[in-house]
């Protein structure tokens, strides 16, 4: 298989980062190389545990639960890391998910 391009994905608050290929979800790349930066739940866009806000850079997303990320939030850069794939280097913030707080 062709080697996919790797992008640098960085946590704005701590500066911690990991590298993520364009065909890899942010969450899976994080788990393999710098575990603990983002919480890991279902890895399927359902539970909301891995919610982040991308503040810099481009990415694609696969289907995410509307219950976890609304249309408005999606437009503001909120995403589920398990369903987001980088297109450039990214800067993100971890978001306390609704299910963690209740």
């Amino acid at each position, binding site marked *: 298989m062709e080697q996919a391009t790797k992008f640098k994905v960085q946590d704005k608050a701590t500066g911690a980062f990991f590298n993520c290929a364009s065909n890899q979800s942010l969450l899976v790349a994080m788990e393999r190389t710098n575990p603990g930066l983002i919480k*890991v739940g279902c*890895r*399927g*866009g*359902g*539970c909301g545990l891995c919610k982040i806000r991308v503040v810099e850079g481009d990415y694609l997303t696969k289907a995410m*639960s509307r219950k976890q990320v609304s249309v408005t939030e999606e437009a503001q850069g909120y995403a589920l890391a398990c369903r987001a794939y980088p297109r450039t280097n990214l800067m993100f913030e971890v978001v306390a998910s609704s*299910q963690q707080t209740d």
Partner: protein
Amino acid sequence: MSKGVMRPGHIQIRVMDMDEAVCHYRDRMGLIETDRDASGRVYLKGWTEIDAYSVVLRQADEPGMDFMGFKVVSTEVMNQLKQELIEFGCQVEVIPAGELNDCGERVRFDSPTGHMFELYAEKKQTGKWGIHPKNPDAWPEELKGMRAQRFDHCLLYGDDLDGALDLFCKVLGFQLSEEVVDGELRVAQFISCSMKAHDLAWVRHPEKGKLHHASFYLETWGDVLRAADLISMHDMSLDIGPTRHGLTHGQTIYFFDPSGNRSEVFCGGDYTYPDHPVVTWDADQLGKAIFYHDRVLNERFLSVVT
């Protein structure tokens, strides 16, 4: 005592990408795809099941469970139970025959935990898949993936466990087989309408109507290990296992479908009869009750539901 509810008969699961979901349930878990309908729902079954299907996948923009259905012994029993559900105070709705392919009329009702359930008496019987009904061989050779045998039970998360227990035991004839108690408070309950240690279970949780997992039966511990191999071979999302539960003592592995709904395949486990006392676990032993070997809960067990 039994009031004519036989078994978990179906579950309708919401998925966000149908192709990915079919790959999970059919190609990885090894359920048999038996039908599709005009609204795009996909119907599947475990190969040992007699009825035409037990899993219905519906495309939606959030995951979770639409409803779980129980098969009852006859239409008379269904109608009798419908009256009792109304008297109990449930919101009851009759779903006409044919709304699900090859299924008769269904009586849908809500539980105090916010989940939707159904009773039905008629569904087309197509027999076990891949083996002859007469002089049947042990298993069909064409099975895929984990070769799941049947849809077995669900674990649900919700708030009013006492109300749900009342409903299922008093109205529908289930028995409480196992429980976890924190002093006076029952924080988990496992109920049965059969000899199985559970046909349905709940864990107490502030939010109503959540699905923790849908579970499918395998024959042996070797099959559970083989399922674990397949999860690695296909880079599927593993939750925990292979391990054993303290509650019911089943041998198990948890993983997630591509929309984040948790799946379980398991084998073994305890049995129950109407005269069996309730098996009780103390909440301070919850780790061991859920994951008998690790004896601690992973964080996901309590927080990740759909």
